[in-house]
């Protein structure tokens, strides 16, 4: 391959590199700021001295977090909900998508419509709550966070598109060799679908990990709350304490606020970001390939 050394090409390269550097800085700076603030002293945080490096380095905020049993328990809850939820999502999504991708499925159109309707219409919060809590009796259970969203239609369409793109000859030859649908699906189709599975799996994973609203609505006990919900309460703590002062309430449990609220807030953020940041590099090589799969649908 001959490198293009024309002026326009070089200018284009400069523009591309410059844009990517800007995007990198814009993306990376908040992350570095959050990490640095979490490792800085209360004094440095209050005075706004922290930029991308910690000032007056200390790990008191992290010590405080790991001594909070509520947070470590919430972390464990998030891991369970995310792992279990993603597994169920993948099971239902892949099977549904594969079935829809086969032309020989009778009433395929009706199944497609059944999947598409929730994509455009929703009953809203109250009907959903009534369905999940009253009809399905899932209130105060982690299943309320997992089952209602078991199949995301967009993700299912992405997978269906991929399955459609696989050559039909693979399936035919497998049938000729005596394989049934289950064997074909699990032993041939899924292994070929690593890229799309990693991509869709990542979408589900991040969705579960970041979710707090469903937990707030459907869970009743602190012991079951996920990490993001606890994180939100910590982030809101400052406003809550200000409100208490405004209301004339004497706040006695204010040690969190007085010690280093900003660092604690950001340390909890880092604590919640860390698992996703650790997982992503392993999935990245599949992600770049898989993200284009859904670009040509139908």
């Amino acid at each position: 391959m001959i490198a293009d050394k024309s002026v326009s090409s070089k200018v284009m390269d400069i523009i591309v590199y410059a844009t990517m550097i800007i995007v990198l800085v814009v993306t990376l700076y908040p992350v570095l700021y959050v990490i640095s603030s979490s490792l800085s002293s209360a004094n440095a945080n209050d005075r706004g001295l922290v930029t991308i490096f910690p000032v007056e380095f200390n790990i008191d905020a992290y010590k405080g977090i790991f001594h909070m049993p509520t947070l470590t328990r919430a972390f464990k809850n998030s891991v369970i909900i995310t792992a279990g939820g993603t597994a169920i999502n993948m099971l239902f999504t892949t099977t549904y998508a594969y079935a829809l991708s086969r032309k020989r499925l009778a009433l395929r159109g009706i199944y497609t419509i059944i999947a598409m309707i929730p994509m455009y219409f929703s009953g809203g919060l109250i009907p959903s709550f009534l369905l999940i809590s009253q009809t399905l009796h899932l209130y105060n259970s982690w299943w309320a966070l997992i089952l209602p969203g078991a199949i995301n239609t967009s993700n299912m369409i992405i997978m269906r598109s991929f399955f459609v793109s696989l050559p039909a000859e693979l399936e035919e030859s497998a049938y000729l060799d005596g394989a049934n649908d289950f064997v074909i699906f699990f032993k041939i189709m899924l292994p070929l679908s690593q890229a799309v599975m990693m991509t869709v799996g990542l979408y589900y994973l991040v969705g579960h990990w970041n979710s707090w609203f469903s937990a707030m609505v459907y869970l009743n006990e602190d012991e079951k709350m996920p990490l993001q919900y606890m994180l939100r309460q910590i982030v809101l703590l400052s406003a809550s304490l200000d409100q208490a002062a405004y209301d004339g309430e004497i706040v006695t449990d204010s040690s969190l606020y007085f010690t280093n609220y900003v660092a604690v807030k950001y340390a909890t953020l880092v604590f919640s970001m860390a698992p996703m940041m650790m997982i992503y590099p392993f999935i990245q090589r599949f992600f770049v390939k898989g993200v284009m799969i859904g670009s040509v649908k139908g």
Partner: protein
Amino acid sequence: MKKTLSILMAALICAGSLAGCSGNSSSTPSSSTPASTGGSSSTAPASTGGDTSSAPAEQQGEASYDKEIELEILRRGDVPTEPTEHLLDEMLKEKFNMVWKNTYVAGSDLSTKITTLYAAGMEPDFIWNVRPAWGSDAWTEAGYFRGFTQEEILNLIPGYEHLWDSQGEGIFKGYLWNYLSWSDGKIYTLPTARDTAGNMAWVYRKDVFDKCGITEFPSNPDEFLQACRTIKEKMNIVPLVDASDRPLFIISKWGQMWGLPDMLPDMPTFVNPVTGEFYDYVYDSDTYRELCKFAYSIVSEGLMYPEFATATSDQAKAYAALGNKALMYDYPAKLAEDNKLQKDNVPDVDWQWTDVVPSINPDKRSVKKDNYHSADMRAFASSATDEQVERMCAFMQWSTTEEGITFHSFGVEGVTYDVVDGKKQIKDQFSTPLKAEGVGLGTYQIGSSGMWKGSEYISTYTPVLAEWEEKILKNPKNVFVMPAIMKYTEEETSRVTELNTYLTDAVNKWLLLFMTGQKDPGNDADWNEYKAELESLNVKELREIYKTVYERSGN
């Protein structure tokens, strides 16, 4: 075969969807509403029912309760602390044979949680924190809460009658009852007393005042402006630092100098405590115009944090930490925090508070005093049983007694506090408002379940607030703006909310224009343009509604 299976699967899915849509056994809350002031014949929400005239449990919790009562309670909870000791649970079981199942939700989520639970008929028996701002008025109208007549509630909680005695006699039966009751004569939310009558005052940096030769805190707006100018000139710092995307919040603190309420953003109407005049809409009054002119002077002369309209509170804090900010209307209880913030840059920083109240009327100085009841009120679900109501009320009654107040503020003797020289002292291992180190009393379930902290706790652990009451509350030169009693019908509430949505935006927009000098409040043309915009947004109609409601509400 496969086709048959496929048709069967499709039918099952459709049948399942239809089954889920029908025959929902949930009970929805009563749709009846309290009798409106318009004379509607609609019935009031579920009455207390049962024999509420039965004598409550004896005070001091000495009655025995044979049957254990369980209550599901929804309460506002910030970061939940894991209790290491369950003193409250043990006391509830021992004294009242009562078990609480608490669900904690962040304050900002309470509205959503309560709405969804009520919609599904799964409401808790008792809600620990309700406020009009979170929707309690709408919930009351929907029949979610249990109502009580004055006789009923005083029968259940006699301690209510004297809970506000430190601020005057007959407050519960008089002002508070009139303020909280609905047109059917009942209250649906139960008040608790605020820990203090008020907690804000002018705070200032004494080190700056000394260096600038300002010997007394300014006593009127002109002196206030001059003091700010002197500070800027001599110290080269910005004397006023505040930030909000709604500038009304910022100027409301200054508005008291003209007799306007501190709660300006929330009180477009109020009664002038000096003249007795009812302001049916304050934001186009001459008094408000004077305030706008003052605000313009402050900003245009560089006496105010330049980014006041766009900065976050953290940014404002960081700006103050550089040594700016020399006076403010703030909480005296937070002076230690202000000193700590600026200590590194200003080693001799010395924040203090003053009982001086700048005012155009030196003999009738308007001061912010909070309403008698705490912002958070309690409510029983209309589905709560009589037994649950009576048991919980017995607990609340006990909480108004000396024993109960001590428990909720100090805890248990020997466990959380000791008595030293006749005075209660919280043990060293616990944090207090005076000492941040230590574990919170909340880990022992002490501190958030009472009706009032009590004067001993307040004078010991928040002496500045006790001092506030002595110096400000009891100063005969100070007058206090209390919210007017305004009882709206459902239609009026809806219309007022709709009108205020647009009007408040316009008021804030124009205030920003005035403060930044783009429009001049002293210029008649600009001021009339502002008023014209308010007229175009139906401020006249809003005024009429406010007047009508005020006159009807028994003020």
